[in-house]
C-alpha cells in the first residue's frame, strides 16, 4: 500500500488539507525543500480538478490521494471516479457550460505539466488518475 493514503469528500475546503499532508509527507520522504512549493501546488491542482469532476458528475464517492515513498523517488497519485465520456458525445444543450468547465480543467493540467517533469494522466470510464513523481535525496547524502 501507499505510505500515506487520504480520502476526502469532494469539497473545495478539503483541498488545502490534502496539500498540507502531501507537503509534509514529501518533506519526510526527502523531496528537496526548494521543490516542496511545487509539490503543494501540483497536488492542489490535481485535487481541485478531481473535486470539480466529482461535483459536476454528482459523484458521492471521495477523492483519493496516495502518497508513495519509494527508493530515490516520491510519487503522488490523485484519483477521481468521474467517468469520461467519448469525445463528441456532448449534447448540444449543455455544451457551453461544459466548455467552461473544460477550460478550467485544462488550466489546472497546464499548471501541473508546467511544474512536474514526470507526470502521467490517465482516464477511463471508471475515472481518472494523475500520477506525479519527484526524485528524493536519501537523508544520509543530504547531511554530508
Amino acid at each position: 500500500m501507499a505510505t500515506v493514503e487520504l480520502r476526502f469528500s469532494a469539497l473545495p475546503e478539503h483541498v488545502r488539507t490534502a496539500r498540507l499532508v502531501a507537503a509534509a509527507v514529501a518533506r519526510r520522504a526527502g523531496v528537496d525543500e526548494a521543490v516542496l512549493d511545487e509539490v503543494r501546488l501540483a497536488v492542489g491542482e490535481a485535487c481541485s480538478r478531481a473535486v470539480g469532476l466529482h461535483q459536476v458528475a454528482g459523484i458521492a464517492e471521495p477523492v483519493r490521494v496516495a502518497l508513495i515513498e519509494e527508493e530515490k523517488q516520491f510519487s503522488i497519485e490523485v484519483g477521481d471516479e468521474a467517468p469520461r465520456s467519448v469525445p463528441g458525445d456532448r449534447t448540444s444543450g449543455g455544451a457551453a457550460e461544459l466548455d467552461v468547465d473544460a477550460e478550467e480543467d485544462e488550466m489546472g493540467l497546464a499548471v501541473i505539466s508546467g511544474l512536474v517533469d514526470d507526470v502521467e494522466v490517465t482516464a477511463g470510464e471508471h475515472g481518472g488518475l494523475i500520477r506525479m513523481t519527484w526524485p528524493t535525496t536519501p537523508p544520509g547524502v543530504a547531511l554530508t
Partner: protein
Amino acid sequence: MDLSLSTRTVGDRTVVEVGGEIDVYTAPKLREQLVELVNDGNFHLVVDMEGVDFLDSTGLGVLVGGLKRVRAHEGSLRLVCNQERILKIFRITGLTKVFPIHTSVEEAVAATD
C-alpha cells in the same frame, strides 16, 4: 490560512490587498469582491498580491475574469507581486504577457499604458 481582502482608493485606482491562500475554496470570495468593485464603477484595479501565500489555477482564473470585466469598461487590472513562487505560476501559464506585474503599489498606481 484563509483569504483576507481589503480595498482602498488611491487617486482613480482601487487597490485590493489580498492576503492568505487563493485556491479552489477561497477564490469565489475574491471573484465576488472583483465583481462588486466593477459593478460599483471601479474600473482601474490594482491587486496587491504581496500577502498571498498560495495561488493556484482557480485564482488565476478569477484574476483573468476580473481583467475581462474591467476591459469591458476600458479599465485596467494591474498586479503587484515580488514573490518568486507566485510569479512562477504566472510564467508557466503565459499570464505574464496578459497582466502588467509591478514591484510596488506606488509603481502600479502611477502606471499608464
